[in-house]
């Protein structure tokens, strides 16, 4: 189990005074301090970890966020920012002596400009909410994490969220123009703007993926894109994971970058098929979902090229959607993958390492061996084009030894990802979950360099001090 920094006794002792001060700064309904009402904030998408906070505030404006931050800074009170709480790495896990700043009330869309291809939204607007606000003109916001119905853009910035379509459209960092941010000291600053590549240091780039350690984002200016004429998916099933991996290499080597290229292994195919009845081939060892975009003729042309490439790898089956409905059917199983695994196992851990794509067969083989060794089942779903692996490790949370084994198994998978040249996390963030593995990827002085940047923003380490970096003995 992960360790949390010890609470400051003097802060816990001052709890009533702190709540009273927060009530003076915010409307009464924006301060939550009763245990029962704070309960929903004790955990996030990584529900194995729980911790009740000191208090929760729900500001409606940037000025309110700044007032709370200034008060907490001046009084040495720790702060944990929270969006929708969908983090799979414990990114929103509170501390006993911390005030949680929940951003869900800042959910207004402030500006949409199609000609300039941008939208300005508050941090609590959901990822899908941006697309919903612009899709009537044929536009969309590109990054599409699986949690996009619920997750908020502020959290997407914090974690630099990706999605199934980032092979073509990039991740959050590639789709931002500007941020409004409250610093740990309570100052309001603007980074970037409503234009590309502001001169000066790339604060926007540093802030994206900083996991709420450097400031709290209150407004985001995103790029919106005009969608293609259409999109269509195909399914290709193979006799081996190595063969499917070679097919992926051949597709990309041919100069085609599909808009999505998803890989599922046999356990995942079976779980999804039982759940979604998408018509997936149960005899396949590996399956690819490949999506292309363009006019109908362009889709046909690209799918023909990809089919021709797949045919070189002795596929078990190739199924090309002939309509939007058939595309949706192909995607149905993949999109329900986490739920499908949830149906066959009481609990699962979703890992998120990235590997060089050429290492896929080796890594899947090693994961299979570890699965036997740990006695835990694993299903693999994988963004094949960019090497982002999502092994789902199945366990039973009611059995403590099962959970500890699952954690150790997950840790071994991530160490393997680093060993083959990859990284601990591709899109879920380090959070608390992978914090103590950071030394696997970074040398001590490299972590110290990153810590020094955190210190430059937050000298007192009040903002999310328990995330990303292994706790220092001195802390």
């Amino acid at each position, binding site marked *: 189990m992960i360790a949390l920094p010890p609470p400051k006794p003097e802060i816990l002792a001052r709890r009533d005074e702190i709540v009273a001060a927060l009530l003076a700064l915010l409307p009464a309904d924006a301060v939550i301090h009763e245990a029962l009402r704070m309960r929903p904030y004790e955990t996030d998408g990584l529900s194995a970890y729980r911790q009740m906070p000191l208090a929760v505030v729900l500001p409606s404006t940037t000025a309110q966020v700044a007032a709370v931050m200034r008060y907490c800074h001046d009084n040495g009170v720790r702060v944990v920012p929270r969006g929708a709480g969908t983090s799979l790495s414990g990114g929103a896990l509170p501390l006993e002596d911390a005030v949680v700043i929940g951003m869900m009330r800042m959910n207004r869309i402030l500006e949409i400009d199609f*000609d*300039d291809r*941008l939208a300005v939204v508050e941090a609590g607007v959901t990822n899908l909410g941006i697309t919903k606000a612009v899709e009537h003109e044929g*536009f969309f916001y590109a990054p599409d994490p699986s949690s996009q119905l619920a997750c908020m853009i502020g959290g997407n910035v914090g*974690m630099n969220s*990706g999605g199934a379509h*980032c092979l073509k459209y*990039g991740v959050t*960092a*590639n789709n931002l123009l500007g941020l409004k941010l409250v*610093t740990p000291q309570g100052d309001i*600053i603007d980074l970037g*703007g409503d*234009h*590309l590549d*502001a*001169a*000066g*240091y*790339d*604060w926007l*780039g*540093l802030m*994206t*993926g900083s996991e709420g*350690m450097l400031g709290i984002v209150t407004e985001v200016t995103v790029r919106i894109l*005009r969608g*293609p004429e259409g999109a269509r998916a195909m399914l290709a099933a193979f006799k081996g994971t190595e063969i499917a991996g070679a097919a992926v290499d051949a597709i990309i*080597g041919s*100069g*085609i*970058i599909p808009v999505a290229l998803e890989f599922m292994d046999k356990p995942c195919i079976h779980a999804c098929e039982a759940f979604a009845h998408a018509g997936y081939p149960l005899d396949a060892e590996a399956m690819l979902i490949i999506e292309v975009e363009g006019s109908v*003729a*362009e889709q046909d*042309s690209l799918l023909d090229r990809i089919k021709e490439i797949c045919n070189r790898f002795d596929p078990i089956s190739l199924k090309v959607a002939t309509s939007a409905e058939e595309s949706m059917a192909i995607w149905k199983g993949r999109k329900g993958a986490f739920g499908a695994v949830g149906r066959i196992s009481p609990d699962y851990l979703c890992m998120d390492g*990235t590997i060089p*794509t*050429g290492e896929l067969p080796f890594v899947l083989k090693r994961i299979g061996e570890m699965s036997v060794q740990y006695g835990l089942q694993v299903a693999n779903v994988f*963004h094949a*084009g*960019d*090497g982002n692996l999502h092994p789902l490790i199945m366990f039973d949370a009611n059995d403590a030894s099962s959970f500890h084994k699952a954690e150790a198994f997950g840790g071994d998978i991530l160490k393997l990802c680093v060993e083959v*040249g*990859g*990284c*601990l*996390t*591709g*899109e879920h*963030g*380090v959070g608390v979950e992978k914090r103590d593995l950071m030394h696997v*990827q*970074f040398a001590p*002085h490299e972590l110290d*360099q*990153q810590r020094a*940047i955190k*210190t*430059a923003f937050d000298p007192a380490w009040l903002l999310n001090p328990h995330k*990303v970096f292994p706790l220092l003995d001195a802390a």
Partner: protein
Amino acid sequence: MSDLIAPLNEAGVAAAVREAGAMRAPLSIEGHGSKRGLLRPVQAARGLTTRGLTGITLYKPTELVLSARAGTPLPEIEAALAEHGQMIAPEPPDTRGVFGAELPATIGGIVATNLSGPRRITAGAMRDHLLGIRFVNGMGEVVRNGGRVLKNVTGLDLCKLLAGSHGTLGVMTEVTMKVLPAARASATLAIAVPDLATGVRALSAGLTSPFGVTGAALRLDAAGPVALLRLEDFPDFVAYRAGRLRDDLAAFGDVTVIEDSAAIWRDVRDAVPLGAMPEDAIWRISIRPSAAPAVAAALQAAFGARLLLDWGGGLVWIAGPATEAAHAAVMAAAAAARGSFTLFRAPAPMRAAVPVLPEEAPALAAIGARVKAALDPFGLFNPGRMRSSL
């Protein structure tokens, strides 16, 4: 510069930095020095160049990844990529013409200045394609950040912080880039528009079409303004989209489809159509595209600015007299459009006398000073390059 240290490997760079730290003797950091004239003159008696650190260290075409030592000349990397039909998608400019440099840019220099060409509008900037770096910090330590995989959110993103930091935060010794397949075919629609504002609207119409425009520039030719929209993909796709766009954009002016347009975009990339005189100063303003007509009008009125628009109107190249009055007009136009400016080229005394980048708000400037100190505590790297205080 009287004294230029040119280590042949990363350990040599680290040793040179440690030595400079011990002496508290600042260094001017460069690759080939091709952009020495960019931003403010550096206040350092000695220089440190990465030009001795050369060579591609990893290239996996099917994994879309390439690593090279920082001093590797860009043309060498582009040639290696071309052999596999790939490219650095942001098409970084060749600034030899603008700065009168002889040697081509190094990959380290292009990343450190985060300069991107026309494809930036849809493909992203150099910093968006930077996957990993190795750099020497001000303590002389070799630090890695990012990696060699396409998706990585492990820890703070120092890659983006160092990209565009103009060598003021660390000395990059190796960079890893995401590379992409180059298109098999391209075509350019040239629209003879009646005025600049109509031209910007034509570019917007192209960029808000579903046809995947990869370049959107406006050239102010002697014969009149020309809006340029580039399409890149498989030949049959390009032909189809060019036909559709030509119909859709006919209302903006006469449309010509140019099949072989590589030279047109190379020129736009390198700001050739700007037509800057040798004695002119050159600026770049980054704004939201719809603000371009007002910015252009203000600068033409202030000093008869020569202009070239890229990025759908979001990037305005400006040439004009190297005077503080012209600079003040550029700063005012950028501020009015809530945009950002860079004094890209000017005589050294002018670059030393004026802000070459927008000032930061006090709270941000304070953070910036602390970040600089966290990476370069002795103030060794390129002092004065970006701001007189940093």
